[in-house]
């Protein structure tokens, strides 16, 4: 059973969002890391790139699979987690402790379109 953390927002493509002021951290869920297996590379955008909700902003690769990262919210990328460059496996060992990008939210109301922990748990149950 995949772990789900309370207090985060979740997308149907298994990204999580943690708002912090006008910004938010974005990562992938335990369910996603489990489905991919050993993650060997995270293709991240560059700081200053704009990401648009529901559009791809990078990819996570395992040995024999690759999955696009789909933006759960829109905004400017203000930070990328450099630790993932040398340690992509961090997403396997602690998916909620390791964010991928920090975004300056352009429309905070987009958070309302995402699921809370309970709704995401129910969503995963049905998969």
């Amino acid at each position, binding site marked *: 059973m995949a772990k789900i953390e309370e207090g985060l927002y979740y997308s149907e493509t298994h990204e999580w969002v943690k708002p912090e002021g006008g910004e938010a951290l974005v990562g992938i869920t335990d369910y996603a890391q489990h489905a991919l297996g050993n993650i060997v590379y995270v293709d991240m955008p560059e700081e200053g790139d704009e990401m648009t909700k529901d559009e791809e902003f990078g*990819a996570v690769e395992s*040995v*024999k699979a*690759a999955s*696009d990262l789909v933006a759960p919210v829109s905004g400017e990328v203000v930070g990328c987690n450099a630790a993932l460059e040398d340690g992509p496996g961090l997403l396997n060992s602690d998916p909620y402790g390791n964010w991928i990008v920090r975004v300056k939210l352009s429309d905070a109301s987009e958070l309302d379109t995402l699921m809370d922990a309970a709704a995401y748990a129910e969503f995963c149950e049905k998969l």
Partner: protein
Amino acid sequence: MGFSYFPHTDGDIREMLGRIGAGSLDGLYSDVPQEFIFKGEFDLPEAMSEMEVRRRFAEMAERNRKLTVFCGCGAYDHYSPAVIPYLTSRAEFQTAYTPYQAEVSQGTLRYIFEYQSMITMLSGMDCSNASMYDGATAAAEAMMMSIACTRKKSRVLLSRTLLPQVIEVVRTYAGYHGVDIGYVAADGGVTSLADLQGQLGQDDVAGVLVPSVNRYGIIEDLSGFADAVHAHKELLMVYADPSALAVLKTPGEWGADIACGDCQSLGLPLSFGGPYCGWLACRKEHVRKLPGRIVGETVDMDGKRSYVLTLQAREQHIRREKATSNICSNQSLMALYVTIYLSLLGKEGLREVNALSYGGAHYLYDSLLATGLFEPVFDRPFLKEFVLKSSLPAAELQQALCEGGFFAALATEEGYLSFCATEKRTREEIDALVACIKDFAHKMHERK
């Protein structure tokens, strides 16, 4: 019945059909609409015995004229050691598939790893893939790779001094791939840095491809190119003859981000244009966009050093329409030719090959000018290949040379005559070529 490639006896077929529960071999096609079963006679010759096949191919091979090659233009008549065909024809190399099952493919995986290493040594780049089809398609992949590396940009510039077939293939790929191609003008036989600078900095330029040794045989001086290109966050791509890189400044030293070319000059037979072996290499930061197979080193369950296909998440069988390229295979066996060639020639031998080619080509150049029938076009340094101007009629000259047993003086688009001499060409052969040209000029003169 009975045919040497099919082991089945009539009894085998009966027994096997029995196990399957089919009445006949035709019964195995009962799912195919009967109108699609081919019932006619194939328009093919009757089966030939091995002796007949041997004779027919010998006859065709003899229909080609044996010529002494004094031309390059992308395919070079270099010496190839006897060891190469001996080793590359080993069945374990030749009849294996792509090394998916690493446990029974360490032979292939190791030589590809060696090949990749040697390409990085020659090119001064960080990473090489396991090889491409040929130089022209490697250049096309480099073009698409530059688009993938820079995201969102859609224009690539090509130097007018690249080989014509390279330009044509890159342009074809670009046209379908939605990439706009621009050209950097030639000035005095080399890529114009001034013209390039005028075109850089337009928002949509992803990169520029320039040759190391160009279509006229001239060694280009790429000083200032990398700085100019990088100032606009664009990529410098260099097309190079890997044989020449034993002595010439490497793409890495020129500051290239991506480099490519054709390995034919490293021990591969001319073989009417193929199979050859393209090479493609890049700086470390771009390796995830490098198309094609890549072999990496790792350890096995018991801690033994071993080799595997790696970074596969880039590839078509995983990314499907999102892959950088559709390429599945490499030219593995040709990469083995290259690897064995470079092992034999090694650090010193490849330099000697260049020194001998240089000496012979310059002797040819001087001898041709001494006839008074040719004029220099560009006064620039060259290695083994050069162009000259002449008032001799090109087509007739080439015809006469063929009759004399030479392939030389290929006319370029600009009307120059192209010549090349590798380490295989002897003084006697060069003297004979020059005599044949003089003889032709003499006859032309008499005819007038």
